[in-house]
């Protein structure tokens, strides 16, 4: 009994709307931050589910990704449609649909609404941007339209929390009131055919075999839904559908255009008595701003200025915060070392856990700054213009203008860069962008470049040479990433994507609430979903570098080091211990593989140990070259690297020459030694396949490039 009671107390709503209508803002305003991401197999976009309690009832809202139409053309869109129609086995069917429409552009926004009308579910229509419509001279008689459509229409301003109470009480009443709107009229022959298909659907699907689904099957161009129907419900209507289409063609109906034509005609008819548009076209403020912002000279200048500011904020403003986090981590480490005696527990806490957690938190300043910038650019309407300006360039590497900002952000750090690909709607474009983003030279590569250029390519070279080398290293990413994107888009991710049709929204003042919500969400999802995984991997790497901690004579290394009288002996013992650790042994084991790159086992170990993050290699090199754990003096490391000989044997030649130093840097330019990036790719693509793929292809690429660099370099010498 109780269960039935509690069920009837829950109202399930699916929220639909075009992109740029403020749907996310409305969803956040209704549910607060009380929502989670639904888990639907095969879906790469986030479908959020939230709930709130109003007048004793629980209202669950499913946030369907923004779309212009409910015509499914990809697996992602199919899941959206299934959820709306109640055909997804993982989710209860919705009790009603909440459609959000932009009042300043009602005709086009109602296209999606008319499709929702055909589901047979009760509808509530919310109107956003009513103030914008008014300032453009559009007057909407909401009451008249509401009477005409027979559904509640509620103007809202989610960012200002206006209209939310009315909306909530509308939702409460929806089940009782059964506000089902009329559906658009199609030519009689279309309606007849649709009726035939619907009857057949009804046999298997009952009420869920809606007019909408029947119409979709009749008029789809790629048989996407027909195939799904056969696969999921063993219902094959293809012969009936083909027969119907022949009938339509015989009546002179154009199967491609009939739907849009009929819907728009019906929308006009409904709106004509209720909406007054301005007699004289006002030149909108947005049009005037656009003349500057998309201008050949000024537009490009302002674009690069904005990008420059964003980029600098990522690099410069994030730096002190990241240093602060680093100092905090060190301080905590010191405190732990003062409390806990030397030993495994201390090492686990300080070198494993604290490094891991610290390594995660370090990314937060960059994520906050980037997503703050992106939220402002997006909310004020500039983001679409940036994509508009850069589209032509990005088309050359098989992507669209929307990939530019994520790739540029990756120059600071691939973690926020990969997260920023969420703005790319086309699934293949987004995946290609994610796959190549880690190739862009991120800031973690800088310490590696600085160390090796400083150690081996500075003394005895002209003054401009180190700078040129650094420039070359950075260029590797800028050149390889677009090429790799082109390769992926013409092989693995081949196929005609969605055409690049993008709305350029009206400029408006960004809302603080929207920006805050975006930053909060990005940081929270990073910390919660990626953070734990990153920290765990860091601890794992610590473990393989710590164990076994007993020497061949059965003595514990930490004890031996504690007892050793001189610093030199301590460092030597530390080296022996690390050499003997699982990771050290692996380093020896892979030596035949790294030898052709001009590296000995020590560099092999340092490279393996830098799997969590590239910059770790500097510290690990300190250990394997016998400098101890905290080689504060980088100068000392430089000297040791300059003098190092193969396998530490004085009779062998110098370990580093120009080819081997460059080979190592080339390897680090192209490899994916960054757990955080891999975990974030998992988070964004929702499968381990793509991070594995990224790691494998980048490591192979890095290895090959380093091999060619060294071998060709040795030939030239």
């Amino acid at each position, binding site marked *: 009994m109780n269960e039935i009671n509690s069920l009837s107390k829950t109202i399930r709503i699916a929220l639909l709307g075009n992109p740029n209508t403020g749907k996310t803002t409305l969803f956040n305003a209704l549910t607060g931050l009380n929502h989670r991401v639904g888990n639907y197999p095969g879906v790469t976009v986030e479908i959020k589910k939230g709930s709130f309690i109003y007048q004793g009832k629980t209202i669950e809202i499913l946030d369907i990704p923004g779309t*212009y*139409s409910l*015509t499914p*053309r990809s697996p992602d869109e199919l899941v959206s449609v299934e959820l709306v129609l109640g055909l997804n086995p993982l989710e209860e069917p919705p009790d009603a649909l909440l459609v959000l429409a932009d009042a*300043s*552009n009602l*005709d*086009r926004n109602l*296209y999606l609404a008319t499709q929702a009308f055909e589901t047979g579910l009760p509808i509530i229509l919310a109107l956003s941007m009513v103030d914008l419509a008014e300032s*453009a001279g559009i007057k909407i008689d909401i009451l008249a339209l509401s009477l005409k459509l027979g559904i509640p229409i509620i103007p809202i301003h989610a960012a200002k929390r206006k209209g939310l109470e009315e909306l909530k009480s509308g939702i409460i009443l929806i089940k009782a009131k059964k506000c089902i709107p009329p559906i658009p009229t199609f030519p009689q022959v279309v309606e007849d055919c649709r009726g035939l298909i619907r009857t057949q659907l009804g046999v298997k699907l009952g009420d869920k075999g809606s007019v909408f689904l029947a119409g979709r099957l009749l008029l789809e*161009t*790629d048989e996407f839904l027909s195939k799904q129907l056969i696969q999921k419900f063993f219902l094959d209507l293809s012969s009936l559908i083909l027969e119907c289409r022949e009938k339509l063609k015989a009546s002179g109906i154009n*199967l*491609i*255009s009939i*739907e*849009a*034509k009929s819907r*728009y005609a019906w929308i006009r008819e409904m709106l004509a008595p209720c909406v007054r*548009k301005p007699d004289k076209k006002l030149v909108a403020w*947005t*049009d005037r701003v*656009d*003349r500057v912002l*998309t*201008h*050949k000279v000024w*537009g*490009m200048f302002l674009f690069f200025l904005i990008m420059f500011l964003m980029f600098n904020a990522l690099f410069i403003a994030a730096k002190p915060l990241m240093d602060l986090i680093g100092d905090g981590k060190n301080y905590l480490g010191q405190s732990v070392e003062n409390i806990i005696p030397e030993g495994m527990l201390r090492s686990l806490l300080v070198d494993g856990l604290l490094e891991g957690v610290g390594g995660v938190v370090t990314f937060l300043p960059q994520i906050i700054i980037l997503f703050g910038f992106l939220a402002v650019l997006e909310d004020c309407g500039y983001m*679409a213009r940036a*994509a*508009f*300006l850069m*589209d*032509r*360039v990005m*088309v050359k590497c098989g992507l669209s203008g929307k990939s530019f900002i994520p790739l540029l952000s990756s120059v600071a750090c691939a973690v926020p860069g990969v997260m920023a690909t969420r703005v790319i709607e086309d699934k293949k474009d987004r995946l290609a962008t994610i796959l190549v983003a880690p190739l862009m030279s991120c800031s973690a590569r800088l310490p590696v470049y600085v160390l090796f250029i400083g150690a081996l390519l500075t003394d005895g070279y002209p003054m401009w040479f180190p700078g040129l080398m650094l420039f070359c290293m950075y260029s590797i990413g800028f050149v390889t990433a677009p090429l790799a994107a082109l390769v992926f888009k013409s092989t693995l991710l081949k196929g005609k994507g*969605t*055409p*690049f*049709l*993008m*709305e*350029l*929204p009206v400029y408006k003042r960004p809302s603080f609430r929207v920006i805050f919500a975006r930053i909060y969400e990005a940081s929270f999802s990073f910390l919660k979903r990626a953070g734990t995984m990153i920290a765990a991997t860091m601890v794992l790497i610590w473990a393989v570098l710590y164990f076994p901690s007993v020497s061949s004579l059965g003595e514990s290394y930490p004890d031996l080091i504690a007892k050793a009288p001189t610093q030199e002996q301590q460092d030597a013992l530390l080296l022996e211990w690390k050499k003997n650790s699982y990771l050290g042994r692996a380093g020896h084991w892979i030596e035949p593989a790294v030898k052709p790159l001009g590296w000995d086992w020590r560099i092999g170990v340092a490279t393996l140990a830098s799997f969590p993050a590239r910059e770790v290699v500097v510290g690990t090199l300190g250990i394997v070259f016998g400098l101890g754990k905290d080689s504060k003096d980088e100068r000392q490391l430089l000297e040791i690297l300059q003098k190092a000989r193969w396998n530490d044997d004085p009779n062998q030649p110098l370990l580093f020459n120009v080819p081997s130093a460059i080979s190592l840097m080339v390897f680090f330019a192209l490899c994916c030694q960054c757990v955080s990036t891999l975990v974030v790719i998992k988070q964004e693509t929702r499968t381990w396949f793509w991070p594995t793929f990224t790691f494998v292809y980048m490591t192979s690429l890095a290895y090959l490039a380093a091999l060619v660099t060294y071998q060709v370099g040795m030939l030239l010498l």
Partner: protein
Amino acid sequence: MPSLDQIAVGSKGFITQIEGEDSTSQRLMEMGVIEGEPFELLAVAPMGDPLEIKIQGYRLSIRKTEASQVLVQLT
């Protein structure tokens, strides 16, 4: 009859036909690019592609490849 990618910035007119029987033309129509609809070519991106048109009271960015499927009549 010219197509949308062949006209000068500032041109006004209406859509006469969408060529092609694929999902691209269907998507265009869903976005409101339908026969008889008035439009204005507002701008071309600095590097020559895509175009910015005003249609149905909003601004749409459309690449020249897709625009070549849209036939127009200038007024």
